[in-house]
């Protein structure tokens, strides 16, 4: 709830004018709507009861004019309400998107990409929908309820006593409903998610479930979740089943009471008969407003949950940002230096990398090898400053990465991640991702080096062949090669390859590396790999073990000097090959 209020306060501010207009218009509209029964009373008291037909038509004309004015005001109100709520949606969406663009890998991991996507899309939509409804329907409820009571009091204090009993009674019913139904709605959402999760697992894990004969277990799991959800849904619905007729009964019995007491007032001459009719109309108006308010029960919890999730994103300061006084590197040669680098993930007990020091020079290929969890990818991620070191420093182009503008740092890096992600569009669009100015010849050249020329040439449309989101219409090996080509088109003095040869067969792998050696002659090249064959001929190999450097040198040197390296080689190539 607090999150929703804060979010609305912040993002509705630019539209405060529009919102004020809407509220004023709704106020006028409500008062006019409540005033109509008043005129009916006049018609009856002054026209009908006195037999003045002319008065009846005159007042009817006034009522008609009033209805027209109310209609126009309402349309104007919808115009401003739609404008304000959609603009709020747009602004929040943009704020979330821009904030995520600033996030570093740490924040991305903390939230998780799927969650951030949901927040940026669905959650914004929930809040937007809520504001739209609030500004058109929900705001009317309190205005009508309060306005109705005030007008009723003005009309006749004694009769208003009925409203003074029934309106709080209705509010109490809705309040009770909110108190009990809102938590149930929330728990229902959790249970729906649970069911969907079980089903998702049954679909994605179908082989494992069948292989382990766990059908009965899955069935139980599902049935429990299903029964649980059904029970809660039934409770919520039966609550509404009781609450809505209860509200109806309160209203209708109020009418009965009004007629009874009104009859006495009229009989004793304290009230003209037309006011009774007006009163009944008030009750109807107020009842409508109250019914609209019950929708709050459904929309508020959803919007509040979404708002909290949005606020979390917007309020998260990126842990990595441009320095205040950025240093521009003198030259972009692509040198990389690790000076006593230590790194630990937040919350992790032990650091992932311990006191790493080495220097990478242009024109040389450095390979990083080590076991699962030895810290290879982490080490690579420190170079483009996806994470900040916890000790020591990483220098690129002889300047600490923390002192450079991020865009400057990134401009000099050609990066190929472990997961070869491609964007929807053509192959050419993807290849030009880092370099819009690249010519077609440049693209073909990069494809040639990446050993992707043949399959791209064979695709319908070639460079214009379209790629699905994520590149799912290509094989893993094809994606990897396009991701490599994409990095090459960017032409950087520093290339980082994060285990991106894994889906290539050995021959392609070897040809690619040979071509790369020529292509990136002058650049600094860092290759993280699992396969020894991929890195065998690197100029220098850094062996990582549990976050420490346990060997630096060529294959030949390491075979004699580094026991861990020898073990890795032997585990892959066998003793005879390693010898």
């Amino acid at each position, binding site marked *: 709830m607090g999150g929703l209020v804060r979010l609305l306060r912040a993002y509705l501010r630019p539209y405060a004018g529009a919102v004020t207009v809407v509220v004023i218009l709704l106020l006028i509209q409500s008062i006019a709507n409540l005033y109509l029964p008043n005129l009916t009373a006049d018609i009856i008291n002054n026209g009908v009861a006195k037999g003045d037909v002319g008065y009846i038509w005159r007042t009817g004309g006034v009522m008609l004019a009033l209805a027209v004015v*109310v209609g126009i005001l309402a349309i104007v109100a919808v115009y401003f309400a739609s404008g304000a709520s959609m603009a709020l949606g*747009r602004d929040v969406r943009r704020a979330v998107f821009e904030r995520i663009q600033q996030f570093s890998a740490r924040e991305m991991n903390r939230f998780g990409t799927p969650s951030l996507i949901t927040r940026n899309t669905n959650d914004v939509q929930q809040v937007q929908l809520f504001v739209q409804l609030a500004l058109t329907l929900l705001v009317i409820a309190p205005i009508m309820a309060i306005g109705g009571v005030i007008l009723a009091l003005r009309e006749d204090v004694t009769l208003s006593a009925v409203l003074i009993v029934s309106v709080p009674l209705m509010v109490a019913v809705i309040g009770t409903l909110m108190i009990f139904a809102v938590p149930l709605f929330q728990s229902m959402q959790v249970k729906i998610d649970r069911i969907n*999760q079980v*089903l998702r697992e049954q*679909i994605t894990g179908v082989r494992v479930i069948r292989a382990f004969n766990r059908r009965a277990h899955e069935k139980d799991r599902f049935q429990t979740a299903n029964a649980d959800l059904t029970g809660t849904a039934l409770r919520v619905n*039966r609550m509404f089943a009781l609450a809505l007729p209860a509200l109806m009964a309160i209203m209708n019995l109020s009418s009965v009471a009004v007629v009874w007491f009104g009859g006495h007032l*009229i009989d004793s001459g304290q009230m003209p008969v037309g006011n009774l009719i007006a009163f009944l109309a008030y009750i109807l108006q107020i009842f409508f407003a109250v019914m609209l308010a019950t929708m709050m029960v459904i929309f508020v919890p959803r919007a509040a949950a979404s708002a909290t999730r949005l606020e979390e994103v917007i309020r998260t300061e990126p842990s990595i940002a441009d320095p205040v006084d950025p240093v521009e590197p003198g030259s972009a040669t692509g040198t990389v230096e690790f000076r006593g680098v230590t790194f630990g993930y937040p919350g992790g007990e032990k650091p992932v990398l311990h006191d790493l020091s080495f220097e990478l020079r242009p024109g040389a290929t450095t390979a990083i090898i080590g076991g699962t969890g030895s810290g290879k990818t982490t080490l690579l991620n420190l170079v483009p400053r996806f994470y900040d070191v916890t000790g020591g420093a990483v220098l690129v182009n002889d300047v600490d990465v923390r002192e450079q503008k991020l865009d400057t740092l990134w401009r000099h890096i050609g990066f190929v991640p472990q997961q070869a992600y491609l964007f929807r569009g053509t192959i050419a669009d993807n290849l030009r991702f880092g370099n819009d100015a690249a010519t077609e010849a440049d693209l073909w050249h990069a494809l040639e080096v990446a050993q992707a020329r043949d399959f791209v040439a064979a695709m319908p449309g070639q460079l214009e062949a379209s790629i699905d989101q994520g590149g799912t219409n290509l094989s893993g090996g094809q994606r990897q090669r396009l991701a490599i080509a994409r990095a090459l088109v960017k032409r950087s003095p520093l290339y980082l390859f994060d285990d991106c040869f894994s889906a290539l067969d050995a021959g392609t792998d070897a040809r690619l590396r040979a071509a790369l050696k020529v292509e990136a002659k002058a650049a600094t090249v860092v290759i993280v790999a699992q396969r020894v064959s991929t890195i065998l001929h690197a100029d220098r190999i850094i062996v990582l073990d549990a976050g420490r450097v346990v060997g630096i040198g060529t294959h030949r040197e390491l075979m004699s000097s580094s026991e861990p390296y020898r073990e890795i080689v032997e*585990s892959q190539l066998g003793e005879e090959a390693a010898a």
Partner: protein
Amino acid sequence: MAQRGVAQRPGGRGFGGPGMFGMGPPPAKTKDVGKTLRQLVARLRPERMAITVSAVLALGSVAFTVIGPKIIGNATNVIFDGVLGRSLPAGITKAQAVAQLRAHGHNQIADLVSGANVVPGHGIDFTLLGQILSLAALVYILSAALSWLLAYIMAGVAQRTVYGMRQDVEAKLARLPLKYFDSHPHGDLLSRVTNDIDNITTTLQQGLTQLLTSTLTIVGVLAVMVWISLLLAVVALVTVPLSILVTLLVARRSQKQFAAQWARTGALNGHVEQMHTGHALVQVFGRRQKAIDEFNQQNQALYEASFRAQFLSGIIQPAMAFLGNLNYVVIAAFGGYRVASGAITLGDVQAFIQYSRQFTMPITQLAGQLNLLQSGLASAERVFEFLDAEEEAPDRAVNSLSLMGEAQGRGQVALEHVSFRYDADKPLITAFSLEAQPGQTIALVGPTGAGKTTIVNLLMRFYEIDGGHIRLDGVDARDLSRDDVRRVFGMVLQDTWLFTGTIRDNIAYGKLGSTTEEIVAAAQAAYVDPFVRTLPDGYDTVLNDDASNISAGQKQLLTIARAFLADRTVLILDEATSSVDTRTEVQIQEAMARLRRGRTSFVIAHRLSTIRNADSIVVIDQGRIVEQGSHAELLARHGFYDTLYHSQFTDALAVAS
């Protein structure tokens, strides 16, 4: 005075559902409405008693609701009569009073009095008023009670029906062949079993009752209005075609805008999804500003489209309110005039005012409810389509492993002239014969697409062979139940599937009721125990939805531990250690060697180093066995395997030069 449309909307999910506020996607078209309706009705058959009772309740509740204003109107008449009566001198008859009034030139009032039930000189008859109001109160209480019962019963009907549907959908998942899962996008499948079912819930919960009560209300109110005064009814109904016209006009226009809004939303969401998924790439490739620019442009376009859509659809509400007010004014003025001329009583006009409101509301809501129904039917069709999908052939189970003395057999596996194809016109496996003796390790190697994983699919009976036999300890696998077949195998796949739950539960998945000791022992054997112990919650660490909180290699180790725990006679390892580093792999190999003692194993591995020590290496190409033998034998043959092996290792660079 109940406005059924609003009052009767049970508070299920989906208040913002399709059609309600035009925020949902445009309702999909149902291909065969008749068939879907029949299927839906068939589903509701077990509830026919409850539905019949509900229909009666709805009828009663609507009848009471409709009659209520008329009774209150009568009460108003009693009051008005009293007012008129008091204004006349006592002791004369009504006729005399009228005559007197006319004599004094008060023709209007004379008309009024002549139309009323007046006793000159007498005030309000409170006995009569009390009786009428008691009746009104009773009617209203009954109406509320009936609609409560109705909603209560219908909530049960909807929930039980949907519960049953969910159960059926889940049971169906278990009966579908693997082929179905492999050939349908998971997203679509999931959407059918989740979103579509949710949508049906909403429809059943709100749509049916509302549709029923709205229609009944319209009919009932119409009848009472005509009964009271045909002329006034005609006047009151003038605005109805007008409101339908307005709704249609606006809806047609706003539909286009909604389509535009949804197209824009889709485009923008696609952009958001891509930019967030490729976050690191966007940053390093210097695309942040471009990503933001494109976002802003699409965001602005979405804003404009949704503003138009919301404004246009938002007009309906005020337009209806205006027509409602118009109606009110016409009835008040014209009704007043008629009362004044004594043609109708004041109470009837007052009842009319309420009826006209009761009438327009359900009419405008019918459109929304029909929309909801339409979208619910489309969902129902998709779910029924799924439920009608072809199922796995039932087990023949003429034989059982347990009948053979050993629950899991000895582990002899034989494939005899097996043939198989996924697509009818593309034979994949042809005349494939292979025999594994108990305790042997058989490695399957070959290029991508050679059919290695297909062999696993066939062994596990995930897919059924087209020809030949697979025999387990001499028994044809097709004569066994699928469960029995799978009880023979322990399986570790390349695709490391773990479910949301603790590490302990995930390992324990391999064996029902396993003890902590067994779980830890399995974890130790798979070399995952030290890693698990570094986690803050150890074995109770909860793996999240996509298990992204542990690495791919660690996931593989967990699936290996799970298979260890299952302790089956035959092990199938399909690229089981592809994400594990080679040194750990060697250690696992050793552990597996211990575990494999006495067990038959099938190993598929891309890395040939993994399978060097297999008893027999089977080289597969294009669904056929091209070579078979031990590592040394195959190398000596200088054939397919030899080339494959050397291309992976020592000659890697030679190829390039």
